[in-house]
């Protein structure tokens, strides 16, 4: 908290900030705490117990769902971020014919309602005869993760000084070398935030995933949503806590690696 920031002159800023963070994070804390619930309910506390973690370990379906979610999210993030970086680099520079159209198409998954994307993707796969599987989920995820990865990268690219590339060319750097030595290091914060956004969106998605999932390809959001009928058990809290720890580890690791590069 930079106290030299003029925002702090407003009265009540500190309590408002505290309230904001508590409001966001308290439910997550409650979720983790209730994963240690001794009772049957996901909302009523009944003593401390580790039994739900052993239930998760023995339940092949929920573990498989979590694994599928992580595999799809990781691969979709890698592919979508690479494609989004290429797109951002391609869109910069002098205007070419169809650029505004391209911009619109890139942002289309953000505009179109998810259910429309889901059903139309499913119909497309049936039409071309592609059998549903984890792979079809991956394709769909890459498609809608691209705009999320693209926007931060594009923003970062806009803020980059164009003369730096000219300077690099002046010093006999080939375009390939100029990219890796100049553009990429400057872009990397944007790429990292684009990748994180893509990862979150992919982990979170239910509607599109459900429709294009093949047999054996249930992901964690689909599994949890489908528990609504029979009731949420603390088993869901346990698997969510595990995923939370994995995600925090992932983010911490990428931050640490980023710091090391400096």
């Amino acid at each position, binding site marked *: 908290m930079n106290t030299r920031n003029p925002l702090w002159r407003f009265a009540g800023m500190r309590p408002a900030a505290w309230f904001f963070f508590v409001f966001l994070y308290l439910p997550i804390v409650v979720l983790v705490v209730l994963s240690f619930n001794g009772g049957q309910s996901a909302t009523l506390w009944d003593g401390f117990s580790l039994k739900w973690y052993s239930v998760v370990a023995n339940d092949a379906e929920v573990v498989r769902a979590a694994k599928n979610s992580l595999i799809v999210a990781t691969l979709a993030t890698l592919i979508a971020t690479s494609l989004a970086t290429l797109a951002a680099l391609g869109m910069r520079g002098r205007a070419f014919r169809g650029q505004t159209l391209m911009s619109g198409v890139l942002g289309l998954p953000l505009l179109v309602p998810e259910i429309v994307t889901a059903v139309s993707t*499913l119909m497309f796969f049936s039409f071309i005869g592609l059998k549903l599987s984890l*792979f079809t989920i991956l394709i769909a995820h890459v498609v809608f993760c691209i705009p999320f990865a693209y926007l931060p990268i594009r923003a970062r690219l806009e803020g980059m000084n164009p003369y730096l590339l000219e300077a690099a060319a002046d010093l006999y750097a080939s375009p390939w070398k100029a990219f890796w030595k100049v553009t990429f290091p400057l872009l990397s914060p944007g790429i990292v935030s684009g990748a994180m956004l893509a990862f979150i969106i992919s982990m979170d998605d239910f509607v599109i995933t459900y429709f*294009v999932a093949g047999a054996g390809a249930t992901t964690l959001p*689909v599994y949890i949503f489908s528990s609504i009928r029979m009731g949420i058990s603390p088993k869901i809290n346990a698997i969510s806590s595990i995923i939370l720890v994995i995600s925090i580890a992932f983010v911490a690791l990428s931050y640490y690696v980023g710091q090391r590069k400096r």
Partner: protein
Amino acid sequence: MHVRTTSLALSLLCAMGIATSAQAAGTLHFANWSDYYPPELLKKFEADTGIKATLDAYDSNETLLAKLKAGGGAYDVVVPSDSFIEIMVKEDLLQKFDKSKLTNLALLKDTFKTLSFDPGHDYSVPYLWGTTGYSYDTAKVPGGKLEESWKPFFEPDPELKGKVVALNSIEELFVPAAFYLGIDQCTEDPKAAQKIQDLLLKQKPSLAMYNSDGTIERMAAGEVTMHQQWNGAFHRAQAQRASLTYVYPKEGIRVFIDNFAIPKDATNVAEAHAFINWMMKPENIAAASNFAKYNNAIEGSDKFMDKELFDDPAINTPADKLDRLKPFELCSPKALALRAKVWTKLKK
């Protein structure tokens, strides 16, 4: 490092592609609601028959219908509710059984041998069934006991104002209201529908909310005193709060049956039949009952059911209350349109 990641990603993609294209004989793709089928039972199926099974999840009949309609033919066995079987058959989404492979059909309980939505069991076989009544906390109601009728639910005692919850679904409200008022649930008469609407609107101020989720927690925590509930959810709530009791209203209580069905474009049809036939064995269906805490339709499963499940009158309907159970009826579009009108007015 980036070259290694891309080649790793590519090889993973290829592996997944290859894995999915190799459909080994002796696999089964089963889809059901989460936590509605015991995972150990699936392992037992694999051990007994050698067929490798996968279990996937869907969250509602509507999404299952949408997925099957849009061409998502990845499943071999699905479990739609009775209200959706006729709809799916009409949309040509289910295939007819080869009854010569379903020898255990003879084990069905008499009351389930002929069902109005699928007489002859050409497309569906019952999995588990339940009832939608209401439960209340005997420790909190005036007098400790309420009449076994829909009256205390639709016309609650003023003391219980704000402590009653109804399910958030038009069928679950319209049908019991029709039972209570003695009107045909598939009525096409606007005047009759008006009577039902008036009853529901009169009930509305006493309700805390319309909600179908978290019914177990709400009753177990004592947040509300009366809740319209499925009997399986009641059983789980009562395990946490013993003073709860379930009501079989004398005017009639709706039965819902979830059924095994085979989608039209299933790939492993023989395995699907083997699975459904295997599930109709008393010990196997009883294992499913014990896990999901709902009753089943197979004769002879009683001796394999958990005692506490068998002894619960909410699950194991007592003989004197069997005539109160009313099966599902698919109504004409005109009747359904009337229901939709009542719901819109109610939820305004």
